[in-house]
């Protein structure tokens, strides 16, 4: 119980402090930074992984590459990459943070996109070609809409991991909500650690909700089978 009370006290202390809500170390600024890092990393990952997944899933060539490289990328320690790129590129730019995050985000998107496309019923693919759709049309008008739930799932998993992991950016002196956590830990200000973590979890939940909404809007009810039968 005392745990819960302490937790609540911290939240009040953190969110209740008006100074927290402005300035370069305020919640809005940090949130924005966090959003920038995560969004940039995710966008890059999507730009890399989705086309690659589509290509490999569609042509059926390079399946082994996907599996192996996805596993390899999952195994890469983000902290290690972060340090490596700081040492290589200096701590001033955002790339030492963005590159590891992209590497983190690529595997789930790649694997899900690939599996999604590959998993489309071959009969469907056949029917599409049989009706005279060209390769690109088959991909864009049939395979992608049908595989969309899986593709979005991959993006969602990646987004959440990225949001949670962007925290580490603070270790090298960059901003984001991780600042609250690292600084709070350094000064043993648990209110800040807890407040920052709660912000990140909320952020992740908002991301989940956004993806759920995106799924509702973009995935055909015929695929999600959302409609009641009769």
């Amino acid at each position, binding site marked *: 119980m005392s745990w819960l009370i302490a937790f609540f006290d911290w939240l009040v202390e953190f969110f209740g402090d008006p100074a927290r809500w402005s300035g370069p170390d305020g919640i809005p600024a940090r949130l924005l930074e966090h959003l920038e890092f995560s969004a940039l990393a995710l966008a890059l990952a999507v730009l890399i992984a989705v086309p690659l997944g589509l290509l490999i899933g569609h042509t059926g060539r390079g399946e082994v590459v996907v599996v192996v490289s996805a596993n390899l990328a999952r195994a890469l320690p983000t902290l290690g990459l972060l340090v490596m790129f700081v040492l290589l590129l200096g*701590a*001033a730019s955002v790339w030492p943070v963005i590159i590891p995050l992209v590497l983190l985000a690529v595997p789930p998107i790649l694997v899900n996109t690939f599996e999604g496309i590959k998993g489309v019923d071959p009969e469907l693919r056949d029917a599409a070609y049989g009706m005279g759709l060209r390769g690109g049309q088959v991909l864009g008008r049939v395979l992608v809409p049908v595989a969309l739930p899986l593709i979005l799932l991959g993006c969602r998993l990646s987004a959440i991991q990225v949001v949670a992991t962007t925290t580490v950016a603070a270790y090298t*002196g960059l901003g984001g909500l991780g*600042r609250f956590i690292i600084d709070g*830990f*350094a000064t043993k200000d648990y209110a800040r650690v807890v407040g920052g973590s709660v912000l990140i979890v909320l952020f992740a939940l908002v991301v989940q909700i956004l993806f759920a909404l995106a799924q509702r809007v973009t995935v055909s009810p015929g695929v999600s089978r959302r409609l009641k039968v009769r």
Partner: protein
Amino acid sequence: GGGSTGGNPLDTTSAAPSGSASGGGGKAVVGSFDFPESVLLASIYAQALEAKGVQVDEKPNIGTREVVIDQVKSGGLTIVPEYNGNLLAFLDLKNTAATTDEVDTALQQKLPAELEVLDSSPAEDKDSLSITKDTQTKQSLNTMEDLAKVSKDMTFGGPPEFKERWEARLKEVYGIEFKEWKSTGATTADALKDGSIQVGNVFTTDPKMAANNLVALQDTKNIFPAQNVTPLLNKAAATDTIRTTLNDISAKLSTQSLLDMMQKIAVNKDEPATVAKEWLTTNGLG
């Protein structure tokens, strides 16, 4: 921001203090802060104690003072290489003691019951506000008083806890206020060099000072207290073996030897443990 640590329910923690001196050597957990010099000092302590038959457990690189002291209090750590001035500032922010003696005396009064400090070593590693030689020439800054005039346009960088401890004091004593405070951990020196900050908090024994052409501004009003290397102990776990061993080390340690050793670590990339061992052997303590 409120950095209050008072009333934190987690301050009294569970880990039981390791049982006090038992027969031969006893046991000790030697921890360190998350910067190389602290790791080096901890390694010196640990290896010296081992040589004396103490069973040592090392926990290097834990984090900041705020975290580490807690662990010493609770007994999670037995020994940490401390700096007397910073420790005092941590325990009593308002204290203005400056010289080694003043600081040590004040420290004895303020030290919580669970803790114990041993003799301070002559070796010292002071905090500083540092700037690049470039900035120094351009703006002709030499002292912290000079800095006060231009600081409003400057960005400061240092470890996160530095702001908590010094923001108010700097303003009060020198009238220094910065445009922005940035958290730069181990990269403060690099940040100074690439210009993302103009003033940084670097230790005077940090080899990066020389390597990056940095200069420390003179602390004319002595707000940065003496920073002699001083072992901090958990009283319950301290034994006489530990006390004598560590006091012997403190006696032999000098600022120059600290500088030399840090040079080996930073430039030659020798391992702290190796450097520590070397020093102990040379000084007949290993």
